[in-house]
């Protein structure tokens, strides 16, 4: 298909761009296959706005006489308005944008066309391999092994080709366990706590059904993670009633009789469709320009967004507490094991593992616990909060995770190597990107799309020193401890950086960040200068001492 067919009016002049907290700018609007480009012609202050069509969530048009107005609402929550003279031009442009922003074939997406303007220093597609992770693990324990049972994606379509499982369980048993777990997602290692050798596993629900089916291999696999005589915790992200109801549809939960060494805790985390509704309500509240405080607070409350944040953080803290404080192994699952399960396991690692609070470690965490673990990014991030179409599989599951990381970051501002911008950047790229990283719903689909061969990885770009410097937290000091965040309502705040990002004058906060960077930079410079001087002084003194006294 040629994009040109969709672009009836590729260019319009005298278009006026309106954005909150900016003066209106007049300029030229151009449409290309993947971008909406606006450039102002003013000599003194030429300005260009490049917007990916895939970033456009919804578009409204209206007319006053022959002046058309298009309001574009983006997945990164920004809203811009374009005044386009000429009814026909405006209609053409609106319909082109609509068509180009809702292309249904993945292979037409921008990452397949994007040619990077930078030199690739390190191919991000091979930066984070599970094999490397396993090597690290092998240096502290030999209780685990790499299994290639899913090499052809035949055992579990949403798992990666290699997984880490207890050594004592062979591939044959894994195949049987896969049949006993929803979507074939048998329990695999998510995190190994070096401090005490406890493990966190994740899976999907067991298919016990109404008649209490059991699977010996599953019990053996799960028990293989326990120290002798110790108990473990199953953290089920559904309330008990939901888990019980799931039995009628063939699902279920681990029953005490068959898993006597495990204790089940139900920590309710909302299903993805509820989260999407909450997201939409919150964003609506954030765009309400009313001056009324009551209305704002009641809308904020009614969105339930912060409730979800609190529940999620609590569940993650609980998992971390079981591992670190109770010295117990943990198995986390909900129904499918692709959403709430991953939120809990990845957040628990942020709390427990200092490595996950570094840039590199956090990237590895996202690759391991989200991309390889089969979180369906393409379905979940197809639309954002402004979508008009009826939602199907969309949900801000990943955004919630990022926000929880931000909440912990806010409470431990010196313990993370990355800054808030890094989290916001990941949110943007999950929804619309020139990189292939977040395309597809699992490794299987990515392999079929040949993403590593045909597209550029986000990590290839982010990990270049030039880019990285933007995402570094100036006040980072490695902290090797477990960090326990507070989950009290008083300790949680709305993530302004995402939700009020386009609605607040950001200058003052940016200046503050600049100031922080400068303070640290100046300190480091001084330190370097003092050290150089000290060295020179020592040299001179040494020379002086050597010299015979007069």
């Amino acid at each position: 298909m040629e994009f040109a067919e969709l672009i009836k009016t590729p260019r319009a002049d005298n278009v006026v761009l309106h954005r909150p907290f900016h003066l209106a700018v007049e300029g030229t609007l151009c449409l290309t296959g993947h971008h909406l480009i606006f450039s102002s012609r003013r000599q003194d202050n030429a300005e260009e706005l490049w917007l990916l069509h895939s970033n456009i969530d919804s578009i409204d048009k209206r007319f006053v006489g022959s002046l058309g107005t298009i309001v574009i609402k983006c997945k990164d929550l920004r809203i811009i308005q374009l005044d386009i003279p000429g009814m026909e031009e405006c209609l053409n442009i609106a319909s082109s944008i609509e068509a180009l922003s809702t292309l249904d074939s993945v292979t037409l997406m921008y990452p397949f066309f994007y040619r990077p303007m930078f030199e690739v220093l390190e191919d991000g597609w091979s930066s984070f391999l599970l094999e490397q992770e396993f090597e690290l693990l092998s240096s502290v324990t030999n209780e685990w092994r790499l299994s290639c049972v899913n090499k052809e994606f035949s055992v579990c379509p949403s798992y990666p080709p290699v997984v880490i499982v207890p050594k004592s369980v062979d591939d044959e048993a894994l195949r049987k366990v896969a049949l006993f777990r929803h979507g074939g997602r048998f329990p695999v290692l998510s995190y190994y706590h070096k401090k005490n050798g406890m493990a966190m596993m994740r899976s999907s629900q067991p298919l016990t059904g109404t008649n209490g089916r059991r699977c010996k291999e599953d019990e053996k696999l799960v028990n293989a993670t326990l120290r002798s005589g110790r108990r473990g915790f199953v953290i089920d992200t559904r309330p008990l009633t939901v888990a019980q109801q799931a039995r009628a549809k063939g699902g279920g939960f681990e029953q005490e009789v068959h898993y006597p060494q495990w204790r089940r805790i139900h920590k309710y985390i909302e299903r993805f469709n509820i989260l999407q509704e909450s997201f939409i309500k919150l964003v609506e509240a954030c765009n309400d320009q009313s001056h009324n405080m009551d209305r704002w607070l009641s809308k904020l409350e009614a969105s339930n967004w912060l409730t979800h944040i609190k529940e999620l953080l609590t569940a993650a803290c609980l998992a971390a507490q079981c591992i670190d404080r109770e010295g117990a192994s943990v198995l986390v699952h909900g129904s499918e094991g692709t959403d709430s399960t991953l939120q809990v396991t990845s957040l628990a690692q942020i709390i427990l593992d200092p490595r996950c609070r570094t840039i590199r470690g956090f990237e590895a965490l996202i690759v391991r616990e989200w991309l390889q673990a089969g979180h369906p990014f393409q379905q979940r991030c197809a639309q954002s909060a402004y979508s008009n179409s009826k939602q199907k599989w969309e949900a801000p599951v990943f955004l919630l995770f990022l926000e929880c990381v931000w909440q912990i970051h806010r409470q431990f501002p010196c313990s993370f190597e990355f800054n808030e911008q890094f989290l916001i950047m990941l949110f943007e790229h999950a929804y619309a990107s020139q990189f292939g990283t977040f395309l597809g719903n699992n490794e299987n689909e990515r392999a079929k799309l040949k993403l590593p061969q045909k597209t550029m990885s986000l990590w290839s770009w982010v990990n270049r020193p030039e880019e990285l410097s933007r995402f570094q937290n100036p006040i980072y000091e490695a902290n090797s401890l477990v960090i326990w965040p507070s989950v009290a309502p008083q300790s949680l705040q709305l993530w302004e950086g995402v939700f009020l990002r386009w609605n607040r004058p950001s200058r003052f906060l940016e200046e503050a960040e600049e100031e922080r960077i400068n303070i640290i930079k100046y300190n480091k410079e001084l330190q370097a200068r003092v050290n150089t001087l000290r060295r020179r002084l020592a040299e001179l003194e040494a020379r002086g001492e050597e010299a015979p006294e007069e």
Partner: protein
Amino acid sequence: VENVRLLDRLSSRRAVVGTLYLTATHVIFVENGSETRKETWVLHSQISSIEKQATTATGCPLLIRCKNFQVIQLVIPQERDCHDVYISLIRLTRPVKYEELYCFSFNPKLDKEEREQGWKLVDLNEEYNRMGVPNNYWQISDVNRDYGVCDSYPTEVYVPKSATAHIIVGSSKFRSRRRFPALSYYCKGNNASICRSSQPLSGFSARCLEDEQMLQAIRKANPGSDFIYVVDTRPKLNAMANRAAGKGYENEDNYSNIKFQFIGIENIHVMRNSLQKMLEVCELKSPSMSDFLWGLENSGWLKHIKAIMDAGIFIAKAVAEEGVSVLVHCSDGWDRTAQVCSVASLLLDPYYRTMKGFMVLIEKDWVSFGHKFNHRYGNLDGDPKEISPVIDQFIECVWQLMEQFPCAFEFNERFLIHIQHHIYSCQFGNFLCNSQKERRELKIKERTYSLWAHLWKNRADYLNPLYRSDHSQSQGTLHPQIAPCNFLYKFWSGLYNRFEKGLHPRQSVTDYLMAVKEETQQLEEELEVLQERLANLQKSQSGNNKVKSKQQDQSKQFGLYTSNNSLANTPQEYSNDLKSFPSRSPSQGDEDSALILTQDNLKSSDPDLSANSDQESGVEDLSCRSPSGGGCLPSEDSGKDSDEAVFLAG
């Protein structure tokens, strides 16, 4: 009283046993056992309520709520002891004479001269001169020399030059409590000013020629503008109701060239109830997010904060952008008027955003113009209906602004919290009484110490590391947004949950940056020394200075702040389920493992009890000064380091 248990509100598992002492000025709780013998000191004047609860098997619980938002839960074994403590505290926390207050016995070991110096730190004459008055339009009036015209006004008041004594006195007779229009802030750049007064006694139709002339004079003092705004900070309904009592508001028809404007800020009773409701929300045991947000909304607190801010923004805009003078009043002109004038001044003039300037601002708009500190903050036993968190709201407005303009203020959050603390503590004389007149009669300056001197002495603790006097945010007028989605008003847990450190960020960016800046300063000094020595050495190669030892000393210091990570905090109660999980391993008996659990807990919470609780301990290492020492109370002896010490037990 011995064997008293101090409960931790957040987690019932953490309780400490110790001894309770009552002194003439403090309630003191000393922990048993642990080597540190941590102490909790609470000034009687900070106590707002004492509640004796039903006796349980373990003893008789006593709940003490403080005005600085600390809540202390004690369990006293004997009912009779508890009753005695209760009765004594009731008496001790309700002094009837000023002389009973702590500031008259408090002695920071300063000599007379230092005390006098302290009181001179903030000088309002100097401040009016800084603003640019007296000048061609404004002059100082001595009409209130002996408080003859208005006993709640200061002796020295600035009025328009064209306002004669006759006009002032005439106008004062037409204003509630004779609080006539007087200058609060003068804008040198464009001659616009902010004046303040009380409501006019206009009733339904009364007029007063002198009052009309007074407003005219204010307008004429700003030749650039042909009208003035009259801002009534009350809700319109309240102002109208006042007319029936012979009070009310200005009729635009009677005054030439005024634009009248209502900005609805509720009265002190509404504010008191609002705070009460919000504190109830803060005190909830493990509230859900909805409980909390709903409670916050229902309390109306942030709405009221926003109303005050909006009024301030309106006035600042009128003065800075339109160049129009504003007369502000409410009913008596000592609560809402003070709030609004000071917020507007703060937005307009960067000087008030410095540490010294902020002290001056409070002294000018609050202390000198007769804000009734004694009544509002209940220093002496009085009518509970007079109590209201008026200045607390102003302080919160400042904090909300600091959140939006992080580089605009020279001081940090701790500065605000400590000022709030001392408004209630009665440890310094600044905020005693209801007016300047009363303070003079009591000879406050001769008999007590000034808080400003104390804060100034410790100013290093109160600096905002992001502030630079040449930064764009520290210039000119601040223009905050108005809508809640543009200007996020936040719940200030740093103040209202001040003593529950577990709720706050565990690492403080401010403290970290302050330590870095301190180190930077040391480095600068060392650099200079080194350069000098290098130059000397190069001049005379033979010179054999042996100063290496000093170098090493310093390098050790520089290493300090890398160790700030000793924050071993403990998890909260994330799940009730976990507690009920009886045994950790099948082989152990239930009791056994329960024991292990508690030990575990003790062990883990130990580090956070030893220093100023976990989250602060790292910071302490790093800044080489304790946050509480940043403090509050000049320690008469080191152990008695303030009410701040309370959170040690947290």
